[in-house]
């Protein structure tokens, strides 16, 4: 039987072999750690430490500002060196707390606590916020907000996004192979909030070891299933994933909860597990450091705040001169002009591409081949939207559903004329969103 999937999509080369079989290694940072106060969607956290303060691993250094916000915790023990704007992945300078590592890794003592089963649902969600958990797949939406739906009875499926459809990335894959029981426990905790929901591990059929591991670990759980999906990009997009698992379609103005679903990333589920089982805040994450340019590509468990530049050395340095650095995957990641930026809660990978990988092409005229229409998972006409975007035709752009675009990059990937389709559409969307027009 063909595996469930969505319409459209592309099959880029996977390039996962660099790090697929590399177990997750602990990484101990050497230099200072930088914690931007804004690593999530919502209100930036407010610093609660002063320059010169000693902080412990797991200590809150910035508190949540309001409901849609989460606190930030120190990932090492050391001294606060500065609180100043620092460069981040996005290329902006963001207020950051800089901590000098004392290499003691002295943990913040954890007070005795009740087992999670004895907590009220609201209390469980509060603990998740206190642990600073956000969506670690890339968006960084605070997890407690996602979990606090108005009517928990309407949630019929909690989907763990195990698809990791971006090329190169293997951080989620390694988690699934190495610690499937964390995922099962984490999902069990989420399911405890939604009595009528089933838990689904949605995973691409190419990740056989992970499918086996999850099936074994979840075998005794009656409310969980492992759903095998076709390997296709962007299978891991929230809307595509919900469609593949449940057959329900949501658009840009709907939330997964409108389709009775909640979707969480693999690392997020692990963070929920750590938060509720051990009251451990989110202070580290798995980062795939990969690319043809590196001597020894690896999967590292990295304390948040570590500089990307350090990870290059940890991966054995350069084999050949890199030409492009990307934070995240090659389809939707952000290219960096400076590696002295910190790993944040949403950093899944550092990709070092060589000149050949990061090939630049001169765009030429559209030949109207329709490849972009075939590839678009949202059923749009990217070639037309890009034309309209390039001519600032806002009204028509919205009429052709331009605001539904996921910016997944599939259209640009397949375009034989090498047009910058995603790029033009993204620019238009951003400008319309900034004007408050949806």
């Amino acid at each position: 039987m063909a595996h469930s999937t969505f319409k459209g999509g592309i099959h880029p080369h996977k390039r996962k072999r660099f790090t697929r079989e590399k177990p997750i290694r602990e990484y101990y940072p050497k230099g200072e750690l930088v914690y931007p106060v804004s690593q999530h969607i919502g209100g930036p956290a407010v610093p609660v430490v002063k320059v010169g303060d000693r902080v412990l691993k797991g200590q809150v250094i910035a508190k949540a500002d309001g409901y849609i916000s989460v606190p930030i915790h120190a990932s090492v023990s050391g001294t606060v060196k500065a609180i100043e704007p620092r460069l981040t992945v996005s290329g902006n300078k963001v207020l950051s707390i800089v901590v000098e590592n004392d290499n003691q890794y002295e943990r913040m003592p954890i007070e005795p606590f009740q087992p999670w089963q004895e907590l009220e649902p609201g209390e469980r969600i509060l603990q998740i916020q206190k642990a600073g958990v956000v969506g670690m797949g890339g968006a960084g939406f605070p997890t407690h907000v996602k979990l606090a739906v108005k009517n928990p009875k309407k949630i019929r499926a909690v989907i763990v996004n195990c698809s990791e459809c971006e090329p190169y990335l293997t951080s989620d894959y390694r988690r699934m192979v190495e610690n499937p029981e964390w995922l099962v426990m984490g999902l069990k905790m989420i399911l405890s909030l939604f009595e009528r929901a089933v838990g689904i591990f949605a995973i691409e059929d190419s990740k056989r070891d992970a499918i086996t591991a999850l099936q074994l670990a979840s075998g005794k759980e009656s409310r969980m299933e492992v759903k095998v999906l076709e390997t296709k990009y962007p299978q891991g997009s929230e809307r595509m994933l919900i469609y593949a698992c449940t057959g329900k379609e949501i658009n840009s103005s709907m939330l997964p909860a409108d389709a009775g679903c909640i979707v969480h990333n693999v690392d997020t589920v692990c963070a929920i597990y750590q938060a509720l089982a051990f009251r451990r805040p989110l202070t580290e994450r798995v980062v795939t450091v990969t690319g043809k340019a590196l001597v020894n590509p690896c999967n590292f468990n990295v304390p948040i705040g570590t500089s990307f530049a350090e990870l290059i050395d940890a991966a054995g340095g350069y084999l050949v001169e890199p030409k492009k650095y990307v934070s995240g995957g090659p389809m939707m990641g952000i290219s960096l002009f400076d590696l002295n930026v910190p790993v944040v809660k949403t950093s899944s990978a550092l990709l070092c591409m060589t000149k050949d990988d990061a090939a630049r092409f001169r765009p030429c005229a559209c030949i109207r081949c329709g490849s972009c229409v075939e590839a678009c998972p949202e059923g749009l006409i990217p070639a037309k939207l890009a034309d309209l975007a390039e001519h600032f035709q806002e009204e028509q752009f919205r009429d052709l559903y331009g605001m539904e675009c996921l910016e997944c990059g599939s259209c640009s990937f397949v375009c034989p004329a090498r047009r910058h389709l995603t790029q033009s559409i993204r620019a238009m969307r951003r400008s319309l969103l900034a004007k408050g027009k949806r």
Partner: protein
Amino acid sequence: MENRMNVSVSPHIRGTMSTSNIMRLVVLALLPAAGFGIYNFGIRALYHMLVCIVTCVLTEFTFEAFADRPVAAGDFSSVVTGLLLAMSLPVNAPLWIGFAGSLFAVLVVKMFFGGIGQNIVNPALAGRCFLLISFAKHMTNFTCDAYTGPTPLEALKLGEEVDPLFLIMGSTGGSIGETSAVAILIGAILLLAFGIINLRIPASCFLVFTGMLIFLGGRGFDDIYLVQELCSGGLMLAFWFMATDYTTSPITKRGQVLYGALIGVLAALFRLYGSASEGVSYAILLANLLTPIIEKMTIPRAFGRRR
């Protein structure tokens, strides 16, 4: 900074298919039919192809150079135009016919409208129809050393019978590249296998055309008759290689089906009731002109949106 980094917005990787790759593969897919044309009609067929291809490429290059536009003449699209045009000429037409047709096809139909991707009708087809109207005598004289008498399509129009096996293999008179259904089908299978075309347009063309013949042809479901109609004239070449032209067919999926159906209807009507023996070229040209409106009518529903 010595080694300047490449910084851009995502996506950071691209697929391998390019415009010139596509055009090269189309040329490859045309080779079986072109090769059979040379085998069937002799070396003169090859001269026609060379004249047309060289004229097309040089015309594009010269125009781009003089109009101070980026030179895209190396992308093989003009090679496709030239080859298709040559394949739709009768072998005994004078060689300057191919030159004139190519000049019209590339200069007027393609470059004057903005070059690749901008032309509103298929250049090769428009070139052929230009020749058909301007030099009807040369363009309808299909007698040559190998074959005399009417072409199969003309014979059918006169109510004569033609052996369908000859039509399928292609050992008949007609234009250079249109006679062998088998050779064209090999090319079509190549196009499908390379993922250059999909079945929406050709399938819809063939189904609707066949349906029209069954209902209006006056012979009902007569398989010999249908094979004769489908394999004679330029129909095979036109449905597989000209109707599927990217630039002049709709980009939307439903639009492609509608466009194919329209061609099927028009081609059948022209064949059954038209005065000329061949009507497929005009059917496609008309459908080309309706492409923008078909596209407008068939904007797809976005994911998660109600129509």
